[in-house]
């Protein structure tokens, strides 16, 4: 009895997951579709493109028929009785394997040190040194910032470089070279691909963006510049600023953002910020390792321009992260910036 009820509950839960949202999608999509009407391209261009599309459709159908025949010939081999047993055995083996792994992992948890216990091996002399001398040595009130941008600045440089390299990889994979504007087939394909889809003049979105974007940008800048005083820092602040730029792009379209953010801006900002980081940190590592006098002083802890290089390094990391996030989004959307 209990099993039946739980079964019923489970099926209702999955139904709610699948159908409930599906209905909403359909109505939303149909309302979208009513608005999208061929507006910009002229009749001539469309005729040309339609002919082109017919050829593509023929090729596509041929390929599909071929695939279907291959699938059928392969599929008949799997429906025999022996294959059925093999599949059942396979399923059971997979389940046993999963349950075994779960049991093993849960067993391991028991041997972990207790959470928050002062005698844990984490609380060794390294963290002691950070907590006791961190503020004095780096000048940063926020010890986390002092750690990641002073003691372990090399790690952070690597992290920023990883982001930059990831953006480069996305560029290689997704960037689309400049297309000829007049070609009808290309234009239709771009519209179908959602690449050039510009947001409609949505008053709600635009008003919200007008209010929120400056505030979010300001908040992101605050997180970055106060990284050595309060929680936050380059990475989180940069992500917030990137999100603000994406909201602006979604509300007003590519035309507006292209005024201040193009591929050139991305290149210039990322490369400048990363090289500034590398050069300034190389200087402080060089002087530190050779016991030379450094012109960078920790300053008074708690002031905005204190903690030596940390605020500037935070700014560099923030700019790289902001540009990378925005670049990811535009590359996914349009294949360009």
């Amino acid at each position: 009895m209990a099993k039946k009820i739980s079964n019923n509950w489970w099926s209702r839960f999955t139904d709610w997951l699948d159908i409930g949202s599906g209905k909403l999608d359909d109505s939303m999509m149909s309302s979208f579709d009513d608005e999208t009407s061929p507006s910009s391209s002229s009749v001539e261009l469309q005729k040309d493109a339609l002919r082109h599309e017919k050829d593509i459709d023929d090729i596509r159908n041929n390929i599909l028929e071929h695939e279907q025949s291959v699938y059928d010939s392969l599929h008949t081999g799997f429906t025999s009785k022996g294959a059925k047993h093999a599949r059942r055995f396979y399923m059971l083996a997979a389940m046993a394997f999963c349950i075994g792994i779960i049991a093993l992992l849960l067993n391991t948890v028991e041997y972990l040190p207790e959470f928050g216990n002062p005698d844990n091996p984490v609380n060794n002399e390294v963290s002691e040194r950070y907590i006791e001398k961190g503020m004095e040595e780096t000048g940063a009130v926020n010890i986390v910032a002092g750690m990641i941008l002073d003691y372990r600045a090399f790690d952070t440089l690597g992290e920023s470089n990883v982001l930059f390299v990831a953006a480069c990889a996305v560029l290689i994979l997704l960037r689309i070279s400049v297309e000829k504007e007049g070609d009808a087939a290309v234009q239709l394909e771009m519209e179908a691909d959602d690449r050039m889809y510009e947001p409609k003049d949505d008053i709600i979105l635009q008003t919200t963006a007008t209010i929120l974007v400056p505030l979010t940008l300001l908040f992101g800048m605050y997180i970055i510049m106060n990284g050595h005083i309060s929680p936050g820092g380059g990475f989180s602040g940069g992500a917030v600023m990137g999100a603000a730029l994406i909201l602006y792009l979604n509300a007003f379209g590519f035309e507006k953002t292209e005024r201040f953010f193009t591929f050139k801006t991305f290149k210039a900002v990322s490369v400048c910020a990363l090289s500034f980081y590398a050069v300034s940190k190389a200087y402080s590592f060089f002087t530190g390792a050779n016991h030379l006098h450094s012109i960078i002083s920790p300053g008074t802890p708690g002031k905005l321009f204190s903690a030596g290089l940390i605020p500037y390094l935070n700014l560099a990391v923030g700019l790289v992260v902001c540009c990378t996030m925005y670049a990811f989004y535009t590359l996914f959307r349009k294949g360009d910036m």
Partner: protein
Amino acid sequence: MQLLSIILLIFIIICAITVAFSKNLLTAVVVFMSQSLAMSIIWILLESPDLAITEAAVGAGIDSLLLLVTLKKIHAIDHTKKEDNNNGEED
């Protein structure tokens, strides 16, 4: 405080199971987003506000945005497209 963190942890587990079992990808992304938000509150309760800010900005914001764009690109949330173009699987 203890009660709040227990509620949040249960919420996270439910969200994770929901993401795994939901067949609708859009639902999965939105639930994933809410899981990130709950996670960021847990980071605050564990006294690491640095991580909380990053989790809220990256996990709930940018991550789900990129996933949504990807879904749009592969026509996973476009139901009308499937009807008039049933054979369009290879692009």
